[in-house]
């Protein structure tokens, strides 16, 4: 029996009314890799942030070797032996410095002398590099290294402190298969030394290679712990996505004329080809795990990225927008995910936020007609049920769900040929989700609609047709009638690997 290095019990964390972590119990045994899975917003990153001292829990306890562990800063957590390597690798290294300085940077912050001895620094760094089998010249600047090497450096640096717990947040998200394998070899060695490792990932291949246990999170709760060999990956994905049937019955409508053709589109050179046709009066939900190519496809539709090969046609005409402005002119409206960075203009009121892309429609000789703007906003507020005092409220005074209504309403306020919504229900409560979904379905007859969602419930609630992406390939297509959830789950988690092999 392995000793439990870190034990979390009854952990709760709320941001305002939003309960992000609810009664979390988690154990991290030494010498084991615990994989943590969860959809966007399930609370994974909050849990990690509590463990590494960024957030303080509201209630609940964390113990480290049976001693209470209450880090008040990342530095403190680090000093006590909980080390985190974050997803964005460049947060972990200083690219302008050489490998030695990067490996020794923690020593630099606490060394006593004033002058540096480069030679001593390099000697120490070389020792670490050898112990970790990095195989790097410690004098090379980090900026000359690839992502995998940078990741290795970040981890090696963490290991200098002989951590008790190592947290890796999606470490392979930007690594190739060969690079990942190097990382796994390193993790194997660390595991052998008895470090408890918490590994956050969705990748099936990673998990099969490295996991000793899988913990699934959903809606801020632990939805399942899987420890028996062979590990039940399907079960973990199901627990993470949840399989509660939707209680909003959707009656698929007959699709109208085709609007958008996607022909033999590959997102990367040599990648699998995608074919898809979106019709008028049809809502298509595109679903898949993180990294399945959802966001990439959405970006291509709005002219933010170019496909490697393939052709798009919109209403019979070739469609290859160079930027969002062209996409909008062609009649494609796109509500991006992550409204805080991609949607909301924080200094504007509801009216200006809602009418932002269509200011031209509200102005004569460039002079804005505030009355028209406000009238259009008022009617949208009413249709979507935005809870506010009036259309001139600052956008920041609204709750997340209502801000999201404004963001979606922005693109619903004018007619379009194709409406693309990327994660329209992100960080939105169930009520707002229903309101938005209902309105999208009601107005679907005027256009083709494609919705990108990670949560399967949301897809079932809104779509006529559900399309599954996995590793940039289209692996499943279902009419939203008596869908066999098991098949859908299997496709999402990538069990039908025969397609990938082709």
């Amino acid at each position: 029996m392995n000793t439990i290095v870190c034990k979390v019990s009854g952990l709760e964390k709320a941001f305002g009314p939003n309960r992000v972590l609810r009664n979390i119990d988690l154990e991290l045994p030494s010498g084991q890799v615990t994989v943590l899975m969860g959809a966007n917003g399930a609370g994974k990153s909050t849990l990690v942030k509590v463990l590494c001292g960024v957030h303080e829990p509201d209630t609940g306890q964390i113990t480290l070797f049976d001693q209470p562990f209450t880090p008040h800063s990342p530095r403190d957590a680090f000093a006590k032996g909980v080390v985190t390597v974050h997803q964005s690798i460049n947060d972990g290294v200083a690219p302008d410095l050489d490998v030695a300085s990067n490996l020794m940077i923690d020593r630099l912050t606490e060394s006593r002398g004033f002058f540096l001895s480069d030679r001593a620094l390099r000697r120490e760094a070389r020792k670490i590099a050898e112990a970790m089998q990095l195989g790097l010249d410690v004098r090379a600047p980090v900026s000359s290294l690839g992502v995998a090497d940078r990741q290795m450096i970040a981890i090696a640096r963490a290991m200098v402190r002989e951590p008790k717990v190592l947290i890796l947040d999606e470490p392979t998200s930007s690594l190739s298969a060969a690079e990942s394998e190097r990382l796994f070899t390193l993790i194997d060695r660390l595991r052998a030394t008895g470090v408890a490792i918490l590994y956050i990932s969705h990748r099936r291949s990673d998990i099969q290679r490295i996991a000793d246990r899988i913990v699934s999170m959903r809606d801020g709760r632990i939805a399942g712990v899987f420890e028996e060999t062979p590990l039940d990956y399907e079960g973990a994905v199901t627990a993470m996505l949840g399989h509660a049937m939707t209680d909003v019955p959707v009656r698929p409508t007959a699709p109208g004329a085709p609007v958008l053709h996607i022909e033999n589109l590959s997102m990367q050179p040599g990648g699998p080809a995608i074919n898809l046709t979106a019709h008028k009066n049809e809502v298509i939900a595109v679903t898949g795990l993180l990294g399945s190519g959802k966001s990439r496809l959405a970006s291509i539709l709005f002219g933010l990225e170019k496909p490697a090969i393939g052709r798009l046609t919109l209403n019979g005409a070739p469609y290859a927008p160079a930027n969002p402005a062209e996409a909008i002119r062609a009649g494609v409206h796109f509500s991006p995910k992550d409204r805080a960075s991609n949607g909301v203009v924080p200094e504007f009121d509801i009216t200006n936020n809602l009418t932002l892309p269509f200011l031209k429609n509200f102005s004569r000789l460039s002079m804005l007609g505030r009355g028209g703007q406000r009238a259009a906003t008022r009617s949208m507020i009413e249709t979507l049920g935005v809870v506010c005092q009036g259309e001139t409220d600052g956008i920041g005074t609204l709750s997340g769900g209502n801000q999201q209504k404004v963001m979606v309403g922005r693109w619903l306020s004018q007619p379009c040929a194709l409406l693309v919504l990327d994660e329209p229900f992100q960080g939105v409560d169930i009520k707002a989700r229903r309101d938005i979904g209902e309105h999208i379905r009601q107005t679907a007859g005027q256009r083709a609609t494609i919705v990108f969602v990670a949560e399967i419930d949301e897809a079932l609630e809104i779509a006529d047709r559900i399309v599954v992406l996995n590793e940039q390939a289209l692996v499943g297509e279902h009419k939203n009638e008596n869908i066999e959830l098991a098949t859908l789950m299997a496709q999402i988690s990538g069990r039908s690997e025969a397609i990938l092999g082709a």
Partner: protein
Amino acid sequence: MQKNSNLIHFAIRYGFLLLLAGLVLYFSIFAPGFAGPRSAVFVFQSVAITGILALGVTCTLVVDGFDLSIGSVATSALMMSAYFMVILEQPAWVAVLACLAMGAFVGLVNGLLIVKMRVPDLLATLGMMFLLIGLQRIPTEGRSISTGMALPGGGNAEGTFSAAFLWLGRHRFDFFLEKLIPVPVIIFVLLGVLIWIFLHLTRHGRLMYAIGSNERASELAGANVQGYKIAAYMISGVTASIGGILLAARLGRGDVASGNNLLLDSVAAALIGFAVLGAAKPNAFGTAVGAIFVGILLQGLTMMNAPYYTQDFVKGAVLVVALVFTFALSGRKRGSGH
């Protein structure tokens, strides 16, 4: 509690204007000769050129940029207009057009450096500032330009500042009193109104504010982010060259040493403008009020015999107070909204 927050709200919104009114009242009582139309016009005249530059820098602040080159664009325009008229012996309108084109071109280069070459705004415009400070001295080998000066190639400069050009800087319109309002003041007020209309009433201005607030979101909403940013720097360059032309017309010579304080004064005016009406963001009305505020303060203090060398200290103090108004007070207001 409610009363307290109302009070803070009132202070944020009207505090600065009340302070301004208080100052005017104080000086009117204690500084003899302060109250009166001639004195008021003098205040306006003293801030007209910095105010014009400040209106331009406001446009770059709106798109979350910054233009450090305005001071040197203005002095370049000053030297260039003198060079065109005195040495090249061109008429006034050619000199004016050339200066405006130069301002627009410098703005274009700034904008391209920032959006296409991805040089950070402060660094790009700092580089441009240096470049222009040096460049404006090369044609005359570092000397000031005036009629009759010795030319490097031998002989004397024959050209003169034409009367039409000097009119721009020196003419005063009758307004109730004879010869009251100078041309630069009128241009300042006119530009202020124009830029206010542009920023607040047109869709272009609205998009520029959107870009300043969330560039990525604006791009995804279809705004031509790069175009608007370049436009902002071009506006800034043109207004700076207007400032330089007016300065040349007032001085009547191409003086290499003048215009040293233009950059700092105009940036200060634009930043003080953040505090006016609790805007907490760059705005044309605030910028104009900010410039006039500094003018009134200096005028009043001078009339009360404060020595000239205290002026920069006073400006700095006003700026710091205004920034506290903007960021500390309204930051608290926003913080409580969560």
